[in-house]
Each structure stands twice: as structure tokens, then as C-alpha cells.
């Protein structure tokens, strides 16, 4: 069954967010051996972005009505945005990037992109699909 026209952009945005989540997750696994406190946070943030975006893609691709697509965009868009925001606030702290600052920068960038994409999904749902900001 072809994907609904209105679902194409949010599906793309969520897919890019999945990649961002994967990057954070990989960073977490990489720093595992030498900084347990940082590693746990990387993995939690990475998993949250990954899972929220992944379910978001599944829901928008399956949806056949504009309202249902908008509903998925709002719910998962906010979740991805908030998870990314949490990641940004954590990765600017030197404590969590100790030992591998370059990895921290990578995680910070990925979280920032995920947050922006989450917000873009919400804006799209509100402006184009005309759904409420709190569905």
C-alpha cells in the first residue's frame, strides 16, 4: 500500500532522527569501557530518540487519514524534540564527555539535529495537517 502523501515528509524527518539516535547509541557503546557514567546517559538518550522516532515512522507510514498522521507527528515529534533537548543539556556538561570530548561533540550535534527535526515535525503537523499541538 503506498504511503499517504501527507506522511512522506514526517516519515523522512523521523528516519533522519533514527540515524541521529543510532549515532548517539554508537557513541555510548564506544565510550563504554572507560566512562561508565557518561556511557549510560549516551545509551539512554540514544535509545529514547531511536525508539520514539522508530515508532513515529511506523505510525505515520501506516496511517491512512490525515488526522491520524498528524496525531503521530505531534506525539512523537514532541518526544523526539524533548529527548534531543535533554541530550543537549547533558552533553554540554564536561562531566559526561570526560575522556572523549570529540564523542561528546558528536552526541551533542546528533541530539541537536534530532531536537530540530522533532520540532519541525510538530510544526508541519500544526501548519499543514491542522492538528492541535496537544493531541
Amino acid at each position, binding site marked *: 500500500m503506498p504511503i499517504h502523501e501527507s506522511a512522506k515528509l514526517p516519515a523522512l524527518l523521523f528516519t533522519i532522527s533514527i540515524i541521529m539516535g543510532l549515532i548517539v547509541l554508537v557513541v555510548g557503546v564506544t565510550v563504554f569501557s572507560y566512562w561508565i*557514567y557518561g556511557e549510560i546517559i549516551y545509551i539512554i538518550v540514544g535509545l529514547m530518540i531511536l525508539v520514539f522516532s522508530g515508532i513515529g515512522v511506523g505510525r505515520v507510514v501506516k496511517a491512512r487519514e490525515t488526522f491520524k498522521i498528524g496525531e503521530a507527528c505531534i506525539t512523537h515529534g*514532541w518526544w523526539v524534540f*524533548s529527548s534531543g533537548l535533554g541530550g543537549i*543539556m*547533558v552533553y554540554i*556538561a564536561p*562531566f559526561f564527555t570526560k575522556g572523549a570530548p570529540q564523542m561528546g561533540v558528536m552526541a551533542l550535534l546528533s541530539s541537536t539535529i534530532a531536537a530540530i527535526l522533532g520540532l519541525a515535525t510538530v510544526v508541519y503537523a500544526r501548519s499543514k495537517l491542522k492538528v492541535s499541538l496537544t493531541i
Partner: protein
Amino acid sequence: MSREESTEAYPWKDIRGDYVLVPVPPWERRTIMNIFLVYTGVLSCIAVLWVGGGLATQGGLMNVIYAAVIGCIIEAIIGALCAYVGGSTKQSTYGILRHVYGWYGSWLFGVLLSGIPNWGWFVYQSWFFGVMIHDLAPGNPLADVPIAALWGGLLMTVTAYIGYAGLAFLSYIVVPAYFILVTAGCFAGVHFGGGFEKLFEFTPQTPVPLTILITQVVGSYICGAIISSDIGRFARKPWHPSLAWAVQLVVLNVYYLVAAAMLTIGMGGTYFSKAMLMAGLGLGAYFVAIFGQWTTNDNNLYSSALSWNMFIPIKKRTLVLILGVAGAIYAWYTGITAYTSLEPFVNFLGMLGTWLPPIGGVLIADFYVFQAYKGVPRHERYKMAIGKEIPLVNWVAWLSMFIGGACAQGWLMPASVLAVIPPAIVGILMSFIVYIILAVALDKAGVSMYIGKAKLNEYGLPVKEVSA
């Protein structure tokens, strides 16, 4: 779904706003995720971390884990039962209390259950907010405890003023980020306190029994469990709020309590802000302090205004504004007089845990047992209809509630029982049992439980007394 698309008949007129007196219409109902996030927004606050920290100093880590799991399961069951009633009837807790305690009972018990305590929570959490901001920026005049409590209280009034949409909007933005930051803060605290090895070696100076710890867990959120219909009424299906409530309790509340306990054991106190600042999480610390309190406290004010609005005939938004400004001023005054003392908060928790749960016990007994005994199908129970009769007073419900409260207080129950079973649970169970016994016995004897009856009009108000 828009109003035009709805096929369900909706004869009600919402004169006070936010569906205070009437059921939530189909076009205003939200997804299960929305309900889950709003519930989680209430849960995600500094107070839950203080509870976890308090438990750690009394029981050690393993006992905290046991107490958190058992206490949260108890709260999840009670809250899920109450939330189902809201999800099924689409009415707020106080609207539901009309059917259980009668019209005047909904005034009295609504105010006892939520009007006063939730407004009190609003005041104390605004004050907490002031304390947190003061810890983060001690030199700033705007971060002086009374001043920060005042502007914090006013800030929290804003989303409560907007209504349910305001609460939901903030919860969407805050909840996942709050979860990440709390986790980060707690891990930082554990690290600075000496690492994970220290956590399991810790034994409190004067350990308290597990039942006391469970009581504290249950007491800390039992009021929220009983008023879970205030949010649950916006759900699309009756079971949605029950599931959302149970998941957030059993997963997130347990997590927050245990994380806070780890932080406290690690650092020797619930120095959450300190741990975050030591880790360089300054921005995150502000986020947690401001938004963590905000998502909880706007709900406190929202629920309090809902209960007062049952009998104060003004628009709900006006009432929220009055209560919010009064609460913020009181928080400012608390900051001046009590400053950083935690004693009022602890006393407040203790009172809540004893007398309020029986109100829910009677509600659960009437909806699930007595209505079933009367042969009313579940989806028809407490269903609103224009011209439907509601009691003015259900004296059996009132009596059962007071007996339950007296048992929980220890007036009608041996201390040995209360040492084993948490008083909050004793109160719920006793009011539940007493209500069923009395209601069924009186029904069989043909004695009325009701004093006066009235018919509902299209505004959800009683207009005509049917009989004395």
C-alpha cells in the same frame, strides 16, 4: 475529531469552562499518550526526589527498592480503579463525587480531597521552587527564596489558567528531557559520592520497618491517585487512563524514587542541584528546577480550582487566577517565615496519607461493587443525563468515609494493625468494607441512603428537589 465530525449527542452547556460540571465532549478527548504524558508531568517533580531521598536515609537502598515497588503497585491499583471511573464517565473527580456522596458531599469531599490539599501543595511547591532557585543562584536578588517563590507560583498559574491544553503542552515538552536530566544528575551524584560500591554498603543510623517506608511511598501520592479522574476524563476509552496511570507509577515513579535514593546515599543528602552543578549541568539544573515543579504545580492548581468550582459560580479561569495569585503570595510569605525549613512539607504529607484515601475507598466500593449489586451496567454507572436524579447527601458514604479515616488515624484500629498495614491502605479498605456492608444491608432493609434528591439541568447543576 472536530465538533462537526462528532456523531455522539452532546446536550450539555459548559457554563464554567473546562467541563467542570458536565462530561468532556468527544471532540475534546485525547490519546492515551497524551494522558500518560500529563500524568507523568505531574509525577516529574522535585518532591518525588525528596521522598526517595527521605526513604534512603531511613531504610537503605534495598529496602527503598522494595518499598518503592510495593508502594507504587498499591498506588497503581488504587489510581487505576479511580481513573477508570473518570475515563468511563468523562467527569472530573468532583463531578463523580456528586453520584457517590451526593451534591453537597461533592462540595465537602471535593474540597477536602483536592480543594485545600492541592492548593496547599501548590503553595509548598512554589516555596520549594524558591528554595531550588536560591540554591542555584544564591547571589541573585530574583533568586531570593520568597521572591523566587512568588514569581514561580505566578508562572505556574499561567498553564493552569489555559486549562487542560496548557498542562498537556508543557508535559509534552518537559517529560522526556526531565527523565534524562534526573538520570544524569543522579549518576553524577553517585560518582561524586564515591561510586556504586558505596550504595549497597550504606546502613541508616536508625532503620525503620519496611511497612513505614511503604506507607510513606503510598502517602506521598495517594491524593493524586484518587483524583486521577481529573485528567483521565479526557481519555478516549475508559481503560486508557487506568493503563497510563499504572505504567507511569510502576515504571517511572519507582525509577525516580530509587534514583533519588542512590543520589542521597552517594552524597549524604538529597543534594540534587549540587550534584548537577558539580557535573557542569547548570542549564539542566535550571530546567529541572523550573519545569519539574511547573508541570506538577500547574496540575495542583488546576485540580484545586476544579473542586472549588463545583459550588463557586464563576468562570474556572477566574478561579484559577484567584487561587494562583493567593497561593503565590502565601508561598512568598512561607519563604519569609519558614525559609528553608522542610517541616511544613513533612507534616502536610502525613496528614494527606491518613484522612484522604477513604474518600477513594467509598468511590471504588460504590462504582465497582454497589452499582454492580444494583444491576447497573458498567458503562451506565454515573452516566450524566438531563433530568437525572442525584442525591443531595448520601449519608452512608459520609459515615463510611469518616470510619475509614478514624481507622487510619488509629482511633478505631489497634496500633499493631497499623504497624503492619500502611494507614492509607487501612483507611481505603475500611471505608470500602463499611460502605458495602451498610449500603447492601440498608438496601435490603428498604432504608434510603439518600437525604434529598435533585434533577440535573443542561448545565450539570441540580435544579429541582424531588423529595426530602
